[in-house]
C-alpha cells in the first residue's frame, strides 16, 4: 500500500449487509420464491404418493416425489426463502430506507439535476424571490427559504410524508409476520362432526357443543341434462357451553360463532347419516352405527350369517344435491343399498329403500328405513395473532398506497442576480426517477415563467396536474 492512499477494507459483516440491503437481492429472492410457489400451485400438494402416479405420467410422478415437491409450502427451502426476504427487508429498512428519507436543504449545483431549468425574471430581486415562494406555496408545496452566498434559495417539498411509504410497507410486513408467528405458536384448530342430538367437546378450549338441529336448503338449477339441486344455505343450531360462554347460536357459512375466549366455530360441512332398524325374526337387533350413523360405503355385517349390507347413499328432499342431473328426485328420502350374500350381490342394481319401507334380507333378517340423521361439520379455531395480522395488513396497504401511488417531490429554486436581472434556477427531484415528473416539471416551470412576467400582486389560476 503506497503512502497517502488509504484502502479501507470492508468486513465480512459489512459486505453481508451490503448484499442484503442491495435492492437486487430481494428481487433475486422474489424470482425464486415465485418459481417455487408456481410449482406448488401447479403440482397437487399433500396427497398420497401413489396418487401422483394416477394423476401424472410416471416420469413426472417420479420427479415430483424425488424432488419432494409434494409439500412445497411447508418445506425448509420455502420457509427459508421467506425468512431471508424478511431479513433483507429489515436490513434494507435500517440501512437505506430510514437514513435516506429526506434530502436536506442545501445549496446544490442546480445544473447537476436531471430535471432543471432557468428562467429570467422581469421583476426585481426581492419580488422575484417572493414570487417564487408564493408560487410554490400555491401549488401545494411546503416552503422554506434561505440566503446563501447572496442568493435566495427556496426549498419546497410536496407529499413529503409519502417518503415514509416504503418504511410503512416494510413495517406492515413485519407486523404480519409477528402475528402469523404468534398464531402458529399459541393457536390451535380442529374439526368436529356432530350428529343431531349429539354433544361433543373441544378439549383445548373446554367447550361442549351440542347440535340441536341442522338445516340444509337447496335450490333447483336448470342444466342441459335436467334439474340439479345446489346448496344455498347450511345452518347449525347449536348450544355452546364453556368458560364465559353459554349460548345457543345459529352457525352458518360466513357467519361463525365466537366464544368469550375468542374461539371461532365455523360451518364447514354437512351430511346425513343413514338410519336403519334391523330386526331378526321380529326382534330388534342392536348393531353399531346403523342408527343414524351410516356413511357411504359403510358395511354392516349381520351376525350369524354371511350377509352384508353396504350403505350407498341417501337420495331425497333432505339432501337433493346427491341426485344426478336428470334423475327425478324421490318424493321421500330413499336409501340406496347393496346386499351381499357370500360376497355376491343379491341384486343387479342397488336396492332403493324409501323411509318407512321394510325389506326382507333373508335368514330371518329384515331392515326398515328410518329418517336420516343430519350431522354438521364444524371447524373450531383459536388464533391469538389475528389482531396483529389484521393490523399489519392495514399498515401494509397504507404503505403501498403511500409508496406507489403518491410521489414526493423536492424543489430547489435559486434566485440569483445577473446583469440582465434576476434569474431563477429551478430543479426537482423525486424518489421515482426524473421521467416520472418530467411533464409536470415542464408545466411547473412554464407556470413560474408566467408568474415572473406578471405583476407581483396578480395570481395565475393555473392548476398543475401534478402526479397526485
Amino acid at each position, binding site marked *: 500500500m503506497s503512502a497517502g492512499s488509504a484502502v479501507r477494507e470492508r468486513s465480512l459483516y459489512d459486505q453481508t449487509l451490503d448484499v442484503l440491503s442491495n*435492492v*437486487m437481492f*430481494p*428481487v433475486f429472492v*422474489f*424470482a425464486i*420464491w*415465485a418459481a417455487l*410457489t*408456481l410449482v*406448488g*400451485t*401447479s403440482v397437487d*400438494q399433500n396427497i398420497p404418493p401413489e396418487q401422483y402416479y394416477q394423476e401424472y405420467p410416471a416420469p413426472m410422478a417420479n420427479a415430483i416425489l424425488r424432488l419432494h415437491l409434494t409439500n412445497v*409450502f411447508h418445506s425448509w427451502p420455502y420457509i427459508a426463502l421467506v425468512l431471508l426476504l424478511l431479513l433483507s427487508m429489515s436490513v434494507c429498512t435500517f440501512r437505506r430506507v430510514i437514513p435516506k428519507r429526506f434530502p436536506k436543504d442545501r445549496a446544490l449545483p442546480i445544473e447537476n439535476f436531471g430535471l432543471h431549468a432557468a428562467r429570467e425574471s422581469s421583476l426585481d430581486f426581492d419580488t422575484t424571490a417572493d414570487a417564487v415562494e408564493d408560487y410554490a406555496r400555491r401549488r401545494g408545496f411546503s416552503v422554506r427559504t434561505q440566503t446563501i452566498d447572496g442568493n435566495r434559495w427556496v426549498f419546497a417539498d410536496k407529499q413529503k410524508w409519502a417518503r415514509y411509504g416504503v418504511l410503512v410497507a416494510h413495517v406492515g410486513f413485519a407486523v404480519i409476520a409477528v402475528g402469523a408467528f404468534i398464531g402458529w405458536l399459541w393457536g390451535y*384448530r380442529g374439526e368436529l362432526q356432530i350428529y343431531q342430538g349429539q354433544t361433543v367437546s373441544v378439549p383445548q378450549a373446554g367447550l361442549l357443543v351440542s347440535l340441536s338441529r341442522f338445516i340444509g336448503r337447496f*335450490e*333447483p*338449477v*336448470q*342444466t342441459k341434462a*335436467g*334439474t340439479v339441486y*345446489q*346448496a*344455498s*344455505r*347450511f345452518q347449525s343450531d347449536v348450544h355452546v357451553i364453556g368458560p364465559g360462554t353459554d349460548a345457543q347460536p345459529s352457525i*352458518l*357459512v*360466513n*357467519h*361463525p360463532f365466537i366464544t368469550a375466549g375468542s374461539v*371461532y366455530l*365455523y*360451518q*364447514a360441512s354437512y351430511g346425513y347419516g343413514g338410519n336403519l332398524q334391523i330386526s331378526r325374526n321380529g326382534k330388534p337387533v342392536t348393531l353399531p352405527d346403523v342408527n343414524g350413523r351410516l356413511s357411504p360405503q359403510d358395511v354392516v355385517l349381520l351376525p350369524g350369517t354371511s350377509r352384508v349390507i353396504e350403505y350407498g347413499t341417501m337420495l331425497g328432499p333432505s339432501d337433493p344435491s346427491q341426485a344426478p342431473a336428470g334423475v*327425478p*328426485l324421490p318424493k321421500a328420502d330413499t336409501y340406496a343399498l347393496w346386499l351381499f350374500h357370500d360376497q355376491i350381490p343379491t341384486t343387479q342394481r342397488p336396492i332403493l329403500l324409501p323411509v318407512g319401507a321394510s325389506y326382507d334380507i333373508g335368514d330371518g333378517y329384515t331392515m326398515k328405513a328410518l329418517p336420516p340423521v343430519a350431522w354438521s361439520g364444524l*371447524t*373450531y*379455531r383459536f388464533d391469538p395473532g*389475528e389482531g396483529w*395480522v*389484521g393490523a399489519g*395488513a392495514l399498515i*401494509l*396497504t397504507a404503505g*403501498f*398506497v403511500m409508496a*406507489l*401511488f403518491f410521489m414526493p417531490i423536492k424543489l430547489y429554486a435559486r434566485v440569483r442576480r445577473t446583469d440582465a436581472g434576476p434569474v431563477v434556477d429551478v430543479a426537482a427531484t423525486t424518489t*421515482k*426517477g426524473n*421521467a*416520472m415528473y*418530467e411533464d409536470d416539471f415542464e408545466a411547473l416551470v412554464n407556470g413560474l415563467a408566467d408568474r415572473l412576467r406578471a405583476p407581483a400582486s396578480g395570481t395565475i389560476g393555473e392548476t398543475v396536474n401534478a402526479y397526485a
Partner: protein
Amino acid sequence: MPSDYTQYNTNAAALMDAHVAAYMSWYEAAVVLYLIAALVFAGYWFFRSWTPIAAGIVFASLGIIAQTISLGLRWHYSGHVPWNDLFGSLSVVSLFTAVLFLIFGARYRIWFAAPLAFLFSDALLAYAKGWNKGLEPLVPSLQSSWIYIHVPVVLASYAAFLIGCVLSILYLFKKADEDRIVRAAGQSVGAAVSTQTADLDIARPRWLAWLDALPASSKLDVAAYRVNSVGEILLTAGIILGALWAHVSWGSYWQWDPKETAALVNWIVYAAYVHLHTKPSMRGTITAWVSIIGFATVLFSYFAVNIVISGLHSYK
C-alpha cells in the same frame, strides 16, 4: 333465487332461456361495441387527430353501458351478484378494463394504447361467452358481504395489469424502433427524431409506421409503472380482503389453496417489478418484460387455476 326454475315448473326451461337471452343480447352488443372502439381508436395511430379518440371514447362508453345492463339483468334474474362464476368474473374484468382505461387515458394521456387494450378486453369478453351456464343460485360459501368487495377489487387489479401489459408491449416496440433510429442515424434518439429524415424510415417496415404515434419509450415506461402500481395496490388489498373473508368463511386466513398461491405469484412478480423500477439501470426493457411476465402469471392464475386445477376457488 326465484322458485320458477324448479323441476315442477314445466315452463322452467323456457323461462331460464328467456332470462339468459335477455342479458346475453346486451352482452353481445358490448362485444361488438368494444371491437368497434378498438378499431376506431386505431385510427389515431394513422391519422394523429383527436377525432378517432373522441369517437373511440363514445363507442367504449356505449360498450360499458351495454355491459353494465347485461350484468345488471343477470344480477336481477339470479338474485345475487353476477360475478359468482368464471363467465361473470371475466365479464367484470373486461368491464373494469374499459372503465379503468378511460380513467387512465384521461389521467395519464395513454389513448395511443386504446386499440390494444380494448382488443385484449374484447377477446376476454368473447371467450367468456363459452362459460355461460345460465343462472345458478349462490353457493353458501359465497353468501357474504365480502363478495361485494374482495372479488371486484381483485378483478380491478387484473384489469390494471392488462393495461400495464399493453403499455409494456408498446414500450418494447417503441424502444426497438428508437434503437433502430439510433443505429441508422448514428446519433441520439432525440436528434435523430428531430431531423425526421426520410432515410430513417427505409429500414422500418411500413406496417410499423404507427409507432410514430407513440410517445418516447421513457414515457411509456412511466405510464406502465403508474398503471401497474395501481394494480399492485389493488391486488394487495384484494389478497388481504380475501384472507379476511377466508378467516370468516373457512376458519383460516391462508390455506395454501391454488388460487391463493397463484395470486401470491402475481403479487411477487409485481413486487419484483416495483423494486426493479427503483434502479434506473433496470427501468425500461427489463421492467417491461417483468410486466409482461406478470400478466402471464395473472392469466395463469385466472384460467389454469380456475379451470384446470381443483381447489376452493375452482370452477371445475
